[in-house]
């Protein structure tokens, strides 16, 4: 759906902060096409 509306899904490194510390995970988020 993102493709047809002028956006694309991109993999993003997302930072997570818990009381035990910080780490990152790879998630998908749609973004406007550059």
């Amino acid at each position, binding site marked *: 759906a*993102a493709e047809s509306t002028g956006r694309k899904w991109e993999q993003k490194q*997302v930072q*997570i*902060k818990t009381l035990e510390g910080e780490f990152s995970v790879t998630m998908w*988020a749609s973004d406007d096409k550059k």
Partner: protein
Amino acid sequence: VKSKSVVPVEEFDWGRYICSNNLVGAPVTCFKHVPLCTFWSDVTEGVRVEVLNSDTNLSTKVYWIAGIVKLAGFKALLRYEGFDNDSSHDFWCNLCVPEIHPVGWCASNGKPLVPPKSIQHKCSNWKAFLVKRLTGAKTLPSDFSVKVHESTQYPFKKLMRVEVVDKTHLCRTRVALVEQVIGGRLRLVYEESQDGTDDFWCHMYSPLIHSIGWSRSIGHRFKRSDVSKKIEGLTDAPSQLFLKVKDVDQSGDWFKDNMKLEAIDPLNLSAICVATVRKVLADGYLMIGIDGSEAADGSDWFCYHSTSPSIFPAGFCEINSIELTPPRGYSKLPFKWFDYLRETGSRAAPVKLFNKDVPNHGFREGMKLEAVDLMEPRLVCVATITRIVHRLLRIHFDGWEDEYDQWVDCESPDLYPVGWCQLTGYQLQPPAAQATRE
């Protein structure tokens, strides 16, 4: 004219209403005029967000990650990560409120993610749990709140002048001033109103409003204002702010005076009636009269554009099994177009002149939404789609009798997804209870 009174506002909970009746809200993508419409196809079940953790003893605001379990318009049923198949702590939230964030927002803003206390004991390594649950999952774009903000800005401003249909004489327009803008809906006050209460609500994309000078340019009747007091700051709303209509070629075979057709009665939107072209205006506009109930002076003729989805060729209702309202006082029932045309010495407007586009709108019967009561257009009410005929939707107002139902086009700017009122700050009229109606 049937109109509803305002229902006293008590807390109406869309989420509970949807869940307790197992209902479906029309998707945001069905409403081209609302904020985030084109983006919303990316908001699906399973998308993760960061949201306030309400299940904690900590005194500071803490957050946790939740996934979308079910969507209804702008609202989502959310479940905190860690509850697996346990729905007991699920909660509804409007995704456009400031408390909803894409995953990663907490870390960027120095806020810790803390698991709800009900499940804190369930896991000894929350990092490993979150890595497993979130890797490869979807979240909102990092500029989600910017998108929400940008899509809720509107070009109409207070004190802009527009031409709008005169609600007491549908055949003419008047000048009105924009007094208020909420979610793209305008409260317009007629220019000669002494106390500012003679007003009219409509959406900025309504076919009922036009730029100053429109009436004169197409030959529409217009009530001139006799305003002695000049108000500082008045400006004419720029013409590019208004809905554009399709260009039409009126030079060849075109609508002519006295041609017959079927039209939604602007004074009773529940009915499609036998109607007549009373006057052909410029730029594709037509003055239409409802047969059998016209004032002698034509003061209730109504202006529809030739491409309007509210006018139909003779026979449309019969083909689509819709009850056609015959002319008032016409006794030869059941109504037959063939006989009526012969008796009145008139001819039907050619089918080829009507708008036959049917957009892939996505609405389904039974879907819930927020809809304007066009007989009382300041009211936005809890409503249901009860019938779909091509692009035409039958809107039922929950808790009200069927006689209040209205035929509305699928692209009407007076239809909104569940949660639109909350998003824009517009007051929602909840379903009427029996006692309130009486």
